[in-house]
């Protein structure tokens, strides 16, 4: 079921009403909580099974194994305060990681490796067992990582293992974020399933506003961009350089509108159920350098890799063995290795394709100079901000010239990265780049027609302007009631209805969320 489908428009209010009907029922608090969690689980499985009910078996299996391993890890860690206990805990944690990654590998990467292997050794073709016909379960990378974070956090004793199987299953399958994140940590989401939730008007209205903004980004910006981008990519060999460049820029907005739109809808929907999910995007296209971009783009995945891969590998402050003669050089090599590892893994996480790996490597190359020079945390303040006399942060209406230039440069670097990401294969990528770096880049690009490009460019401008003005907020429409004109509830309600109508009237063709394939 897609968030932007008619089915979801019926599904959500029904689930919402039943969920809170249970919440307001005159029953014992614990029973109420269990019933609510059970209902969330059923609703989530209906939502997920809408694609293909067979996927449910897989997610149930993953959930059960992770839940069981959590209990075993917890038992080993707490019952025997000895080396043996830790060894056992480590064993169960590794077993769960191997199992989950094994499933992920089989569904997502097996065919890729077989094909690459056969290409490397053509004589083996036909004898290798060959590729297998498997459908990639929607959102497998997301819920697998969520399940992994649980067992690792239990092992690290950051969270107590839960015995409540229903709550755990609901945590893994919670429908707003099941198929495309944010990849939640057990430390944040699981405790919310273990305590009673109360309806909050402010939280729910904020959630609705976030859903509205997410819908705008997805179905107006991203889907309309997709119309252009898909046509250009389908016929890239006949396009002018300027058209290819415009398609690359529009894909940059498409992927942002698509994925951050999804995240907004997911976070907003969760708020309707009294659950707070982590933020996944923080205006990444206003970043002043690549390091800042990565702190603002797909935050849940970036921090996942940081916490579970990068830091365990030593991060940017690796331990230096005593026998090392040149510690500085050693440290740099470890930093380079670690940076490449997380970026390549991040690229590979997106799919079994060399283009994703190349995309990861490209970003690693952009990131390395910053981390080696110790400038990767240079921009941690809000863009376009200054400190007033009292020392508190204030926002400027516009960025400074220097910031504008930095934002533009970072944006163009990111655009280039998205070309690599969007290319279906490496040869196509090279042809696309060849076509783009042509004298025809100085011609006027193909724009379809006025009825297409005027609304699209206006929508992109509206998105950027509103996000710029509300860059200090969690989402673009947060706290809009603070504005003078909008502090009347009726005015706001009319505005929401009108916005919803305009969003639907100017929507593009129905396109699946890009990140569903990951």
């Amino acid at each position, binding site marked *: 079921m897609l968030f932007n489908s008619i089915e979801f428009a019926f599904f959500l209010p029904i689930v919402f009403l039943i969920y809170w009907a249970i919440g307001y029922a005159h029953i014992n608090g614990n029973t109420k909580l269990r019933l609510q969690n059970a209902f969330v689980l059923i609703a989530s499985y209906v939502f997920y099974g809408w694609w293909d009910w067979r996927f449910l078996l897989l997610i149930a299996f993953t959930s059960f194994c992770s839940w069981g391993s959590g209990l075993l890890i917890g038992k080993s860690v707490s019952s025997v305060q000895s080396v043996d206990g830790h060894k056992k805990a480590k064993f169960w944690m590794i077993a769960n990681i191997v199992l989950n990654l094994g499933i992920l590998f089989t569904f997502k990467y097996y065919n890729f490796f077989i094909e690459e292997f056969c290409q490397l050794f053509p004589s083996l073709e036909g004898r290798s067992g060959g590729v297998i016909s498997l459908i990639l379960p929607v959102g497998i990378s997301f819920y697998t990582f969520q399940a992994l974070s649980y067992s690792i956090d239990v092992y690290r004793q950051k969270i107590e293992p839960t015995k409540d199987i229903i709550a755990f299953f609901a945590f893994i399958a919670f429908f707003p974020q099941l198929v495309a994140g944010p990849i939640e940590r057990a430390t944040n989401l699981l405790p919310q399933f273990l305590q009673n939730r109360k309806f909050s008007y402010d939280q729910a209205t904020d959630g609705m506003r976030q859903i509205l903004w997410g819908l705008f980004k997805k179905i107006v910006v991203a889907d309309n961009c997709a119309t252009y981008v898909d046509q250009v990519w389908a016929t890239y060999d006949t396009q002018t350089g300027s058209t290819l460049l415009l398609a690359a820029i529009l894909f940059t907005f498409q992927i942002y509108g698509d994925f951050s739109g999804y995240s907004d809808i997911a976070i907003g929907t969760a708020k309707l159920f009294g659950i707070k999910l982590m933020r996944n995007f923080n205006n990444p296209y206003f970043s002043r350098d690549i390091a800042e971009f990565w702190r603002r783009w797909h935050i849940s995945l970036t921090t996942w890799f940081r916490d579970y891969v990068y830091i365990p590998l030593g991060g940017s402050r690796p331990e230096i063995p005593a026998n090392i003669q040149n510690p500085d050089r050693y440290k740099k090599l470890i930093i380079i290795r670690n940076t490449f590892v997380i970026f390549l893994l991040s690229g590979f996480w997106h799919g079994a394709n060399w283009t994703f790996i190349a995309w990861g490597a490209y970003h690693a190359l952009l990131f390395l100079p910053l981390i080696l020079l110790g400038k990767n945390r240079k921009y941690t303040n809000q863009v376009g901000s200054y400190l007033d006399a009292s020392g508190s942060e204030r926002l400027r209406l516009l960025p400074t010239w220097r910031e504008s230039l930095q934002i533009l440069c970072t944006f163009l670097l990111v655009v280039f990265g998205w070309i690599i990401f969007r290319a279906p294969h490496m040869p196509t990528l090279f042809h696309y780049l060849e076509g783009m770096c042509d004298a025809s880049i100085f011609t006027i690009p*193909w724009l379809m027609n*006025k009825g297409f490009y005027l609304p699209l460019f206006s929508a992109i401008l509206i998105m950027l302007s509103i996000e710029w003005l509300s860059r200090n907020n969690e989402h673009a429409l947060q706290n809009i009631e603070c504005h003078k004109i909008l502090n009347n509830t009726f005015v706001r309600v009319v505005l929401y209805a*009108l916005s919803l109508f305009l969003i639907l009237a100017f929507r593009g063709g129905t396109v699946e969320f890009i990140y569903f394939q990951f």
Partner: protein
Amino acid sequence: MKKFITNSLLCFCIFMCIWCVAEYAKEKIYLPNAYSYKYKHVKGNSSIKTLLIGHSHFENSINPYLMGDSIYDFAISGRRWIYWDVKLAEQLLPTMPNLKYVLFPLGYAMPYESPHFQPLTDVIEENIYQYGKNMHVMYDRFPENYWYKSSLVRNDMKIHFWREKNQDKLGYYKLEGQSEECATDQNVDSNIYEGEVAQLCLNEYKEYFIQLAKICNENNIRFIAVTCPCADSYIQNTRPQGIKNLYDLVDSVRTYYPIEYYNYLDDPEFRADSLYYNCSHLNSIGADKFAIRLKNDLGL
């Protein structure tokens, strides 16, 4: 919770009101487009002597300004079914006292399309809507639900409020340069005429084609069918049987009514790719060249 549900319901009601007003406005406000403009121009027009009808092959691929006086290009891009031509001819030809020639595009792929035997596509839905609203040709296959089917649901609301306002005075829609999707998505399926459904479509096409000839004959109008030139990438996919079907169609009409037929599909004069917008449509250069050629061949 009560406040939240009340406000949500209020928002929903206001949304429904806006939706209804927009749908009503879309029906009631006159927004000129190619359909309405062409229909109004042609109806009862006594100055037109030559009328080009049909689909994009004529709307885009012939420059009427180079075909002599008193010509009008009544063809509409996106017209996917001969039914509309027949019904419009029935309605309009008797109102045009000085009409001498009707030119009809007999495309290679067109005889194999019919909503009677194939699923209703978006283009056909748009045809049903536009021909119904702006040209007063109703199609009653879905009388119970079609006209109430919302523009918002069909995702064409923005199209209705965003029309090109300037219409060419001879109905010509020029295609400049080469299409970005040239030689790919406009290509014809080589085996388009095969199968039971294709045969049903072809038979239906034949019936309508005969009706069109009959209407012209009854109104003393010379009926001329023309197959427009296509690019090499298109011709590569055509098959002798498909071409033969075109001639058979013309022959089947000839047993009842007079008809002239000119086939330029692979004419040597139109082989250069520079003449094409995409593989089945001439661009403005090609349209100029084709108009002059057609004028000479037909003796207009």
